[in-house]
């Protein structure tokens, strides 16, 4: 973890957001490096990156480090976050 280096408080976290399907197309990128305040949850980050538009916000599930988590889960420095749009596999 790099958040505590040089003795500073980890006031900000660096996270990598992976984007898929319609969200990838909306941002025009399949990943995005984000700097967020400590205490930010995965749902907070989704709301920041995808403000509610005229058609509302796509309902997503949240993954942190490749596991499903609830939206209230706090981010950590170095996290791999994914917003999981409605699934279409099978």
């Amino acid at each position, binding site marked *: 973890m790099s958040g505590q280096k040089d003795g500073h408080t980890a006031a900000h976290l660096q996270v990598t957001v*992976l984007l*898929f*399907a*319609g969200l990838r197309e909306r941002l025009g990128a399949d990943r995005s490096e984000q700097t967020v305040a400590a205490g930010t949850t995965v749902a907070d980050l989704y709301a920041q990156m995808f403000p509610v538009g005229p058609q509302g916000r796509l*309902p*997503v*599930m949240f*993954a*942190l*480090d*490749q*596991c*499903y*988590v*609830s939206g209230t889960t706090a981010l950590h420095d170095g996290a791999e976050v*994914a917003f*999981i*749009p*409605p*699934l*279409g*596999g*099978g």
Partner: protein
Amino acid sequence: MIFLTHAVLDEPTLRAAVTHSGAGAVLVFHGITRDNFQGRTVTRLSYEAYEGMAEAQMTAIAREAEARWPGVRVAIGHRLGVVPVEEASVIIAVSAPHRGDCYAASRFAIDTLKARVPIWKKEHYADGAEWKANKESGHGVDVGEIEER
């Protein structure tokens, strides 16, 4: 055997992965691509995945089925990229000592895959394209067990 591939899915390989001398039943489920959706003609379908997590979820589903129905073995292959109409996007092979558990485990595996495995399907029509959601997709409902980190 659990995998994602951009190649054609090979049914005999998946079937062989679960077939053994103690099995009394083998079922091989093929999910295949369809050329229409609600009256619109689909010209092309393509799939993309969150690959590491998708393989982890597919593995977890196989292990859950094997724990719930003793003696069951499950193998899953899912195709990515463009999948031509009538070809398999997913094949799930299941063996069991007896047919009842084989049917139950096969049904569990495909239903749970549709709800939990991070794979997306885009349907292309003559006049546009759309990301299609499974009705089983766990959005807005309980996704079952949230994994401990």
